[in-house]
């Protein structure tokens, strides 16, 4: 197998062809309304937003900082603008059940009008009805009624008094009532004198007195009935007067609102209620009680008079109350009270007929909010319930507004983990959020995309109020976007990083008094970002340079190789070499992964070590036992080790330990390997190469150093300027490998050798040395076993 040629500068960096960019500065570029390269997402959103059926709500998933919220908002604003404006909703007093306010739907804009009409009516009631009661007509009629009752009341008493007088009996008033006694000349006869009357006379008088008393009793007992009758007549008079007063204004309103039967029914109920409470309006001093007039107010819950198209509402604090609305209370003299005018709309009310955008993580962190949202979406109506009621903590009488029918499209925005967790653990989730709109992390980089990507960058620059960029600056940014995507054929779609970079470049341009953002400003922004995040990387490099962490970058050494690893701290990633060592001695086919034994290795790493162990057995001892006891360790690694990207390096170092053939320390290796020795792609190659490059540079300069990496990783290379210069000058080499044998040859300088038909390797080849050495191990092992067998056999024989 031939040694692969080192990669050229063009292979390790995909330059942006500036001839593909048809502009001088981004100022001349047309803005992109919707991002390109997100067809899947846009089609999903278009479908979700237009789909009428229940449960087709959207979940827009993608990494954080990808600009999901902005995109969703932008898309929905455009989509909603062509849709009809939804109805207004208001709550009005329920005259049948005062704690259950009614909901009335009105065409958009009419809610405000209705509210004003009812407020005017209440104001009119306040003055017109007392005026009616003060009118001469009313006063006269009331007086007539009162006089009639007085007359009727007195008539009975007068009749009795006259009958008494005619019979010489006085009707005398007492503090508590009346009494009868015989009289003469208008004066009551002295009781002593009465005793002198004859028995007949006495009997006559007493009989008459008794008769009069009975009549008086009857007359008095008629009084309550009489009063009740008068009360009723006064009430009907009041009703009549109020009806007449209300006839005009309510009639006008009925006509005006005749197109809405619900409003007409409400107006009729108001009229009946006013008539019923006519007496309360009589106090012209203080007017009708405020509580009574409040009943005729309209609580305009949703006012769409100024809404254009369907509403798009974003609820930034999606707790239960903000979503479903709430019933507020007013404190009055230490007591809390509420009525239908204190019902407040939630974002679901405001978004009704349109779209509600919610952040998935936020709604899930609010108590009961998620459950409430699901309940409402299932029932398709908004029922306002206080949180304390839901928890059963409050049992006080409160308002229970009539539920409002809901037709809303909820758009949840969140990261992928949340989506998959919800889909897995919440059985309702997929019933309610049937449309998955998945954000692309990276965009294809091809001939078509350059101009579009440049327009996207121009749009971003405008949105962050940055200067226009010139063509080379855009080119550099496109190249950096590939580096961020970690792929020569991709561009990152990560909105936040690009915008931040643009803002920073704009800052440097401003400092330099430049009208445009130039390539230098972009580079400065990239470098400054890297520098700000470089403290830990620098410390790590220093440790290597000072020899605290031992990394050899020169010479040759058996059983020792430079592996490459990537460290991620916060948002920054950097690579650094790690010394991997191996030992080998005869044994029973065992490769000890020290990291795993020390519980510092992860399962993928363990798997990789098992693969290499089987590779060894399969390749070098296909027909016999692999008599090997080997160990592998990441030196000076005190954290965990995970991943299989070191398996090529581990194989090389193990084979070196077996054969004693030294490995070049000027090369570092990364790559994963399968059981057949084929090299497979790994992640973070750019960081790894740059990390090793930096170490070499620091350890006496780069000269003949290099990195071996899987050939399938070549298209992920977007290396920095320094590495590219070293490659151009031939002082640093990057070798793509497809098979472990290529790594062996590069690291040892020996030909690996291919097996002949019988599986033997050619004399002098590296693989032959491995096979021979393993055969020696096997012999040694066999001798030991035989000696042990003899030992145990002799002992057995002695027995």
């Amino acid at each position, binding site marked *: 197998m031939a040694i692969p040629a080192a990669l050229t500068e063009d292979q390790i960096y995909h330059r942006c062809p500036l001839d593909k960019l048809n502009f001088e500065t981004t100022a001349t570029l047309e803005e992109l309304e919707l991002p390109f390269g997100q067809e899947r997402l846009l089609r999903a959103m278009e479908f979700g937003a237009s789909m009428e059926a229940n449960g087709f709500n959207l979940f827009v998933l993608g990494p954080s900082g990808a600009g999901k919220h902005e995109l969703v908002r932008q898309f929905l604003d455009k989509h909603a603008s062509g849709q009809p404006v939804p109805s207004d909703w208001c709550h009005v007093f329920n005259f049948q059940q005062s704690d259950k306010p009614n909901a009335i739907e009105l065409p958009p804009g009419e809610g405000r009008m209705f509210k004003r009409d009812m407020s005017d009516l209440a104001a009119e009631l306040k003055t017109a009805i007392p005026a009616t009661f003060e009118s001469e007509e009313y006063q006269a009629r009331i007086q007539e009624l009162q006089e009639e009752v007085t007359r009727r009341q007195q008539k009975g008493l007068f009749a009795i008094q006259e009958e008494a007088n005619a019979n010489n009996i*006085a009707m005398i*008033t*007492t503090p*508590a009532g009346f*009494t009868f006694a015989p009289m003469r000349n208008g004066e009551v006869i002295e*009781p002593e004198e009465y005793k002198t009357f004859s028995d007949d006379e006495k009997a006559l008088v007493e009989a008459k007195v008794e008769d009069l008393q009975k009549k008086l009793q*009857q007359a008095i007992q008629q*009084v309550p009935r009489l009063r009740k009758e008068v009360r009723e007549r006064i009430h009907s008079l009041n009703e009549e007067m109020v009806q007449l007063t209300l006839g005009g204004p309510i009639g006008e309103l009925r006509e005006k609102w005749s197109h809405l039967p619900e409003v007409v029914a409400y107006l009729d109920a108001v009229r009946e209620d006013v008539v019923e409470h006519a007496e309360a309006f009589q106090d012209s001093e203080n007017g009708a009680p405020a509580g009574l007039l409040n009943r005729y107010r309209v609580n305009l819950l949703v006012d769409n008079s100024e809404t254009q198209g369907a509403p798009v509402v974003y609820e930034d604090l999606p707790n239960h109350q903000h979503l479903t609305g709430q019933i507020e209370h007013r404190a009055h003299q230490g007591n809390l009270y509420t009525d239908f005018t204190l019902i407040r709309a939630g974002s679901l009310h405001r978004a009704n007929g349109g779209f509600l955008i919610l952040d998935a993580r936020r709604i899930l962190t609010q108590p009961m909010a998620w459950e409430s949202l699901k309940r409402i979406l299932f029932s398709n109506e908004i029922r306002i319930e206080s949180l304390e009621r839901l928890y059963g903590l409050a049992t006080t009488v409160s308002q229970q507004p009539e539920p409002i029918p809901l037709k809303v499209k909820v758009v949840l925005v969140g990261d992928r983990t949340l989506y998959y967790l919800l889909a897995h653990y919440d059985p309702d989730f997929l019933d309610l959020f049937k449309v998955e709109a998945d954000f692309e992390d990276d965009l294809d980089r091809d001939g078509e995309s350059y101009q579009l990507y440049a327009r996207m960058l121009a749009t971003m620059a405008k949105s962050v109020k940055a200067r226009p960029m010139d063509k080379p600056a855009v080119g550099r940014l496109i190249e950096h976007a590939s580096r961020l995507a970690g792929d020569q054929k991709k561009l990152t779609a990560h909105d936040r990083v690009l915008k931040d970079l643009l803002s920073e470049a704009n800052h440097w341009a401003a400092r330099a008094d430049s009208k445009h953002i130039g390539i230098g400003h972009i580079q400065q922004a990239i470098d400054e970002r890297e520098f700000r995040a470089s403290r830990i990387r620098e410390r790590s490099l220093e440790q290597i340079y000072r020899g605290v962490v031992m990394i050899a970058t020169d010479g040759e050494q058996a059983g020792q190789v430079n592996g490459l690893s990537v460290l991620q701290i916060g948002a920054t990633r950097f690579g650094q070499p790690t010394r991997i060592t191996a030992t080998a001695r005869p044994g029973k086919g065992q490769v000890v992964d020290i990291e795993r034994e020390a519980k510092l290795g992860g399962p993928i790493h363990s798997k990789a070590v098992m693969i290499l162990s089987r590779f060894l057995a399969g390749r070098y001892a296909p027909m016999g036992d692999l008599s090997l006891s080997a160990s592998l360790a990441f030196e000076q690694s005190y954290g965990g080790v995970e991943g299989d990207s070191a398996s090529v390096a581990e194989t090389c170092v193990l084979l070196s330990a077996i054969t004693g053939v030294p490995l070049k320390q000027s090369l570092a290796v990364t790559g994963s390997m399968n059981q057949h020795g084929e090299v497979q792609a790994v992640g973070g190659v750019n960081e790894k190469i740059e990390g090793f490059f930096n170490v070499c540079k620091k350890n006496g300069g780069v000269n003949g150093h290099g990195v071996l990496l899987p050939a399938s990783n070549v298209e992920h290379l977007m290396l920095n300027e320094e590495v590219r210069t070293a490659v151009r000058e031939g002082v640093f080499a990057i070798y793509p490998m497809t098979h472990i044998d290529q790594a062996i040859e590069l690291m040892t300088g020996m030909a690996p050798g291919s097996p002949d038909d019988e599986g033997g390797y050619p004399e002098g080849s590296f693989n032959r040395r491995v096979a021979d050495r393993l055969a020696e191990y096997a012999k040694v092992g066999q001798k030991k076993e035989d000696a042990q067998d003899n030992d145990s056999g002799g002992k057995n024989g002695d027995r």
Partner: protein
Amino acid sequence: MTAEQQLPVEPVGRVLILLDGSRLSLAALEAAADIAHARKAEVLGVFVEEVNLLRSAGYGFTREVGRNSGVARPMDLAAIEARMRSLAEQARRSLERAMAQRGLAQALTLCRGRVADEVLNLARPGDLLVLGRVGWSGSPGSRLGSTARVLVSQALGDVLLWADPPMRSRNRIVVLLNHDQGANHRAVRVGAELARRNRQPLTILVRTETGRDERIAEDLLAYMESEGITARVSFLPMASAGAVARVIREEGASQLVLSRQCSLFREQGADTLLIEMNLPVTVTP
């Protein structure tokens, strides 16, 4: 005729307040106390034990029929007397309390007999007699008691029939006069005093058969101006008591003053007017 000549100053008499323990008599007591305080007048409370009532309680067979319930209960002289004593005591306490608050001297006269007769015996021409329009002895729904009727027509001095004052929006003192009446001055003076004391404007209504008489109007207004009272004078034709009542109501009267010499009394319309006007009314001789 000048205002000075027409309206001579009269000596301050006593304020006689007729107490019977009824609600309205207690309200009248407060009004009487205010007047006495303003006039710095002596107050005499009068409590009369009605002799007819005491006599009727002496019969074994008489029953008291409850005014509201209509239930008949036996009458007992001792019980009635005890009740009268208790009412008298209550009257005395009320009188003492009302006058003590204002620092006025007071006395209570207890007598037994016919109420109207006893009061007429006690009253002197310069005295102001204050009583509720109806007492407990008034028949149900009545707006003018029998005692009030007798005293209005027979008392030698002024009589104030107290009633619950009307609503606050009615705030004028109204004096009703006759064009050809000789004793107008007394009513005008009482009206002026009320207006001053209550800080209310005054309306003088003059009943006339000859139309507006500017001279009288000017005299009256000049007098009122000299007293510092806002006043207006209206002339009205000699209409029925009902029509007069309507005009008074339209004026927004809070209190009414009229002279017994007013032709309404001759026309027997005074009772109707007094019944219709449910507000405090002062009748001057």
